[in-house]
């Protein structure tokens, strides 16, 4: 149980950057979860499975194009759409018939989806570990603070804010974004003024799941893709969304930053119990701000 080695400023800085880039992936996934939670009021347990499908789909597309640079970019673009398609089918075929039911029943439904998706992934891709190599321009590392960091982490640090800006633009400037925000606050009223709420829900669900797929596609070069990655992310995602404020996109960003940074600094300070740190951070936040850091839409 010894403390981490080399507690100097350089390793602190680089570990901080690792944490920030991890937080960007968490943010992309949690923003989707938060969006679905805000508009549909459904805790989507299957969100982690969609993230896993996104990762595996990105792997397959990458391999299909001969592991080339173009394949990598195509995987990054197409994999989220594959996930969006899967979620659209699930939503229109099954989920949309259940909106009138009690919320715990919807939770049960998404749990069933998680079980089904988990096994479908196992059927399709098998239990092997898969990995993807990023293209040449993102390979290698850059030296910062005297220690080297993978270039891909810097790529993530650029993508994360871009996604945040795009999401902000979407929810504030486009009609569908505004309608879904309105539906989050008062769904009856939205129905009354002649908007098909069912399709708004479908759109919100698909967009949320698209973000899960995007997160999955983004994470692929940094970890080995395997079964069980859905379990790992979903609980973190729920905690992040809760401490940020349910349904609040900026809350998801704040929560992800807290979670990612405490996790990576925990590795530095006390490697054996590194996983304890983010959970402890969540406990502290919830005790101080029981309803999350930012305003929740619930």
């Amino acid at each position, binding site marked *: 149980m010894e403390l981490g080695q080399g507690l100097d400023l350089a390793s602190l800085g680089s570990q901080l950057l690792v944490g920030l880039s991890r937080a960007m992936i968490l943010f992309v996934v949690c923003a989707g979860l938060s969006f679905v939670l805000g508009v549909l009021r459904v805790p989507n347990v299957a969100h982690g499975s969609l993230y896993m499908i996104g990762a595996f789909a990105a792997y397959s597309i990458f391999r299909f194009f001969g592991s080339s640079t173009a394949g990598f970019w195509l995987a990054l673009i197409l994999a989220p759409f594959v996930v969006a398609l899967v979620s659209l089918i699930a939503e229109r075929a099954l989920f949309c018939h259940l909106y009138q039911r009690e919320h715990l*029943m919807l939770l049960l439904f998404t*749990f*069933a989806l998680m*079980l089904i998706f988990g096994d479908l992934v196992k*059927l399709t891709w098998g239990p092997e570990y898969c990995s993807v190599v990023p293209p040449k321009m993102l390979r290698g590392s850059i030296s910062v603070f005297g220690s080297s960091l993978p270039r891909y982490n810097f790529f993530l640090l650029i993508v994360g804010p871009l996604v945040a800006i795009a999401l902000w633009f979407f929810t504030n400037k486009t009609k569908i974004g505004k309608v879904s925000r309105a539906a989050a606050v008062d769904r009856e009223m939205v129905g009354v003024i002649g908007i098909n709420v069912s399709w708004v829900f479908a759109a919100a669900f698909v967009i949320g799941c698209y973000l899960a797929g995007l997160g999955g596609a983004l994470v692929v070069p940094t970890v080995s893709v395997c079964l069980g990655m859905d379990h790992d992310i979903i609980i973190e995602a*729920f905690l992040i969304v*809760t401490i940020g404020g349910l349904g609040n996109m900026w809350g998801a960003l704040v929560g992800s930053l807290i979670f990612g940074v405490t996790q990576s600094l925990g590795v530095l300070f006390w490697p054996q119990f590194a996983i304890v740190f983010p959970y402890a951070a*969540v406990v502290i936040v919830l*005790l101080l701000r029981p309803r999350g850091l930012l305003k929740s839409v619930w």
Partner: protein
Amino acid sequence: MFKGTIDVKSLRFIGAILILLLILPLIFPRFYIYMLALIFVTSLLAMSLNVVLGHGMIFQFHHGVFYGVGAYTTALMLSKTSLPMWLGFVAGPIAAALVGLLIGWFCIRLTRLYFGMLQISLGSLIWAIAFRWYAFTGGDDGIHGIPLPSLISSLNSAYYFILIILVICLVALYLILKSPFGSTLEAIRDNPQRCEAVGVNVRRHQLKAIVIATFFAGVAGVLFVVLEGSVFPDLLFWVLSLEIFIMCLLGGWFTFAGPVLGAAIMVSLRTFVGIFTEYWTLILGVILILLIFFLPEGVMGYFLERFRPQARELAEGRGE
């Protein structure tokens, strides 16, 4: 919700099931006896969750932690100390109830989803400690080969031991839920504001319910040690908690015996479908979806509604 007093008919029914369960080990092969014992343990766990979930509408999202704490306490006492064995069996539930009191005390000031999320994060802390503290808890390997008293070390005697404890616990739970305490808990579930207004200390009452529920979860944990002779961190992991949660919803969480049915369905599905294919969760998912679409009140709720007109009236009176 279902205030059906125990009549002669149900007593006969329960008696017949008990006698059947008592003679089963004489005829059935080991495999089925093991599965039945596992169903008993899981049923008790699901029942204990339903005390707070179905009867109290408290979103106990991480109930598995208390099960694991009970199991780990007993396992550690039996394998690492030379204290009398029975002390280990008593310590498990008490430790679970103490942890339940501690976590509940923190969580109870939050409501619904926030309650559940805080509990998940607190519970995950305990999981992380058990998962990583190799020197004490054995880390991700867990503890194996726990020495059990010779009286209950064979499968059949473990079966009878678990059955007896289960029956005692179910009777105790039944009495607790039918007592004024249980009625108040249900009243809080149905209308917390009004309960507050007539002078019920809602928070404290719910906290008491949580302690009771976690105590019985600890008992289930001890029974798991008796059955398996080992513990591992998966007992404390949130996936298990979610599974118990689902069992309650599946069996019918507004009924007393629903969780037992839910547990039996989940465990036997896993065991039997698991024999034929490794994709048993796919089958389980499909069955769950069918149940959600066709039996919204849970399996037990469906049967009660179907065969007991009086229950149907009650359900209608609830405004559903």
